[in-house]
């Protein structure tokens, strides 16, 4: 069974640009979560999607947004990139509302 897949693996952008990160959940999982892991910091909750709807949002500015598609895949958009947005962005999927998260390998975003 395929795990959670994320793309791209690495992404380099400059300040002010936009970044789009993509995630495909495990087959049968309807919930997708996004986390930010900055260097030396823990996982910070960004967004939670379930059945195509945004269910919860972490303490991040509105320039962090995303969506979930009918096939349950998801994308995370970060607008007006700032240097401090440089981090590993992790996507996780979960069976229906169990809180049990299965993570992808992450997308490493570097903002120059």
């Amino acid at each position, binding site marked *: 069974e395929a795990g959670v897949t994320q793309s791209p693996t690495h992404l380099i952008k400059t300040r002010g640009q936009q970044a789009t990160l993509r995630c495909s959940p495990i087959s049968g999982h309807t919930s997708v979560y996004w986390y930010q892991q900055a260097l030396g910091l823990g996982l910070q909750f960004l967004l939670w999607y379930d059945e195509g709807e945004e269910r919860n949002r972490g303490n991040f500015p509105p320039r962090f947004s995303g969506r979930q598609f009918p096939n349950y895949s998801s994308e995370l958009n970060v607008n007006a990139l700032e240097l401090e947005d440089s981090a590993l962005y992790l996507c996780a999927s979960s069976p229906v509302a169990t*809180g*049990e998260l299965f993570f992808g390998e992450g997308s490493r975003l570097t903002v120059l």
Partner: protein
Amino acid sequence: QKEVEQDPGPLSVPEGAIVSLNCTYSNSAFQYFMWYRQYSRKGPELLMYTYSSGNKEDGRFTAQVDKSSKYISLFIRDSQPSDSATYLCAMTGGTGGFKTIFGAGTRLFVKA
């Protein structure tokens, strides 16, 4: 006060030692408790998933939850160099829905 507190370490032990990792939390509504292992530059991997107070054992790993004290532990028996990683506690459920909150992670080094 953070919702979840975890000593970041690092914790260094000799091979074969018993390792004890701990987290405390403040939100009494949390219902599900998890431990993840994260190797460098990889996504977190679910190790243990528990619901309610008590112990759960899986091979060399034992997870312990004490809801009355808001305290969870992970014990690793006969530790191996391959156990060297960052261990993250996580919890979810309750009034916050299934927004999973993570501890900062404890870096563990097991010396051969």
